[in-house]
């Protein structure tokens, strides 16, 4: 096994007023992820390093960090990506340090400790867009006919109707797009890419009638118009959600709904 040097930004609010860098040497092979490296550090070198993780398979959304300044999922980003080609074939046993890997907490969020940021700052935006099916007359509120399974019917939805929103339903709430978004960096009140994608996920669902209820948030001061279309959010998204596309669609919807409002006086 070869070694690699890694720098981690630490922050211990009660012990040190300021963040500081700590350097580690970590063994690795082709399949070592950034998360594996962090776990190695915690178990072997410094038990006080704190970070979030669980699934280690890029689906729970816990492990977002900045790696060399770019937002990444720690469990889906590999040390091999940062090292010179053929590093494993090379004879040298010296630590591969040509490119030291620098790990920091996700940008634009309040850092709570080490690599842990305040995810509530992300969740409030998700919750604001009413991310659930809204149907007329509260049909979804009717309690199920308990014992008669034949009475319970699903809505119809064709594969084409499903395809319209499917991509936006794949968001794992990792928050990487917020760290990539310069607008969110300037204005934490901006609803942000993932929440707009989630709003669109429901707006585009053939079973939903809640668009009118969601539009005020998207139209508002901190809604879609805050976006200056940098598009970095879609570049960093590990799940190909393409939140930038959702923001753009949101702008079109918003323009329409504002026009309607102008002419009819209702939203």
């Amino acid at each position: 096994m070869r070694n690699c040097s890694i720098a981690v930004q630490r922050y211990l609010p009660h012990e040190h007023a300021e963040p500081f860098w700590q350097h580690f040497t970590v063994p690795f092979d082709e399949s070592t992820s950034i998360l594996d490296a962090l776990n190695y550090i915690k178990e072997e070198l410094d038990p006080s390093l704190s970070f979030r993780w669980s699934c280690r398979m890029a689906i729970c959304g816990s492990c977002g960090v900045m790696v060399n300044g770019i937002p990444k999922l720690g469990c889906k980003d590999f040390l091999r990506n940062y090292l010179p080609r053929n590093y494993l074939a090379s004879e040298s046993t010296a630590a591969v340090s040509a490119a030291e890997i620098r790990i920091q907490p996700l940008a634009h969020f309040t850092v709570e400790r080490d690599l842990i940021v305040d995810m509530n700052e992300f969740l409030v935006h998700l919750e604001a867009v009413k991310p659930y099916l809204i149907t007329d007359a509260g049909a979804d509120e009717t309690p199920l006919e308990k014992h008669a399974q034949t009475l319970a019917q699903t809505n119809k939805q064709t594969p084409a109707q499903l395809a319209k929103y499917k991509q936006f339903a794949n968001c794992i709430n990792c928050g990487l797009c917020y760290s990539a978004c310069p607008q969110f960096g300037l204005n934490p009140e901006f609803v942000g890419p993932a929440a707009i994608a989630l709003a669109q996920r429901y707006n585009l669902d053939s079973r939903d009638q809640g668009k009118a209820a969601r539009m005020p948030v998207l139209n508002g001061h901190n809604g879609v118009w805050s976006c200056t279309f940098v598009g970095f959010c879609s570049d960093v998204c590990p799940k190909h959600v393409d939140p930038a596309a959702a923001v753009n669609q949101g702008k079109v919807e918003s323009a329409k709904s504002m026009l309607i409002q102008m002419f009819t006086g209702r939203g």
Partner: protein
Amino acid sequence: MQQHEFDVIVVGGGGAGLRAAIAAAEEGATKGTAQGATLNIAMLSKVYPMRSHTVAAEGGAAAVTRADDTVEAHFADTVAGGDWLAEQGVVDYFVRHAHAELVQMERWGCPWSRQANGDVQVRRFGGMKTERTWFAADKTGFHMLHTLFQTSLKYPAIQRFDEYFVLDLLVNDDRQVQGVLALEISTGALHVLYAKAVIMATGGAGRVFRFNTNGGIVTGDGMAIAYRHGVPLRDMEFVQYHPTGLPGSGILITEASRGEGGVLVNKAGYRYLQDYGLGPETPLGKPENKHMELGPRDKLSQAFWHEQQAGRTGKHGDSDVVYLDLRHLGKAYLQERLPFICELAQSYVNVDPATQLIPIRPAVHYTMGGIATDRYCETAIQGLYAVGECASVGLHGANRLGSNSLTELLVFGRLAGEQAAKQALAGAASAAVDTAARTHIGERCYQRWQQKLSHLCDTQREMRSWVPIKRALVATMEAGCGIYRDEAGLQETLATIHQLQQDAQHIRIGDTSAAYNTDLLQCLELEFCLDVAETICLAALERRESRGAHQRLESAYQARNDAEYLQHSQVFFRANAPAELRWQAVDTHISAPAERLYGGQTAGEGAKDA
């Protein structure tokens, strides 16, 4: 000490916890107002709900759906799959309520995969005789969890305590639950939460084994917490291996990849399953239920073990492996039906399934056993419920069928939520709570834990890491309590666990900060794991027969032995002493035990499966 008052507390924000919380909120909104009360519900989770391990489930959720299918057939598959150790009344309730719950998920917006006409599509799944598994691409658990989480936001009655780590239960002398004690992870502060009903929905315990498909948080906390209060853990010896985990990480390659037509080959490229009673070989691209690759998981994992013994497995890194071949399905089909699998294989073993074989090996996947409950999800402690993978309601018996457990979260999550709400409403209507006595219990519990935690972090003591203990535990479980077991190996593992429990007394945490002390949390999780491991190992030792996922190597114990062991194991906690095992009768009132048959053996089985 911060104190809170609720009607119902749900511990866990996975599929089971969310479904239970929503059911309790609905019950409170309908029945509660009639009685002049609404219910306040607290949901605590050590991670944000959408991080819960339900998120990782790939394959699907079962319910009888097609016109040519029957609930009797789903019942028969489940009971036979569980090798007749399932509670048959519970299975019957389950199969009858499964469909309605999946429909409810659809009405909440779950993006189920569809047929061209807009109806929900069902797929084949191992051990199920007919196509009855609903799925959302190959991310079923992910979509179910997010749908439930997002839907839960509609209910103001549910107050979330995200990143609160539950340490203990409050129980009074009359064996009634009074609430929970929890650690607020962001500050390290302890909170006492009182309630008339508590639902445990803390998930499985796969992390007690080295090689597993589970997330890092799946450490059996709720099982250990209930167990330490005298609730037995039932059927813990039944631990399911999944035949297709990635070598190294244990990351799961869903069974759906075999349902779609993937085949398993050994290093010679031979479809070895035909040698283990699962043949005859089915033609490529024509998978058949219950045959070959779609045989039950335990049989497939055991076949791997034999191939490994015979030296017919290949190598990936330092892991012995066999191979999953998906190449004949073609790139386009793979991208449409198994996109997540393609992504995982590419990232974690650097393989493109369209052109290359995926190396795989069995990994611990699911704990069939858990906190013993009655058919209404209530435990031996009044007002304490358990549901989901942490519970043993009796659905899975000796072996769980894939795609039954996601449905279990819904069917029994709803039931547990409703029952807990009823309990809380009845409690509210009856005599006033003895708040003084209750506060006393809360304070005592608080002080005990305050002391324990400061001892663990006491810098006067020599620093002693939990890491070597964890490594020794997962290694001994794998070695002595794995796919095949025998007396000597189990004795040794049990002795090792007892030693590790002693060693754990000397741990001193290296991290002394109050906020986000993940070092402390992992140590507490390890302590839970040690207790759970002891119950698994003891029950495996005492069950001297082979049944479902529990396989003994001794020739006298290689067969199922209904005369002696058609019984649930129940392991009881004993303070400062080894755990104690008792047997409990099984409900077999609907279908008498018969042989489990798969592959070509099923040809004449009609009568048995009726």
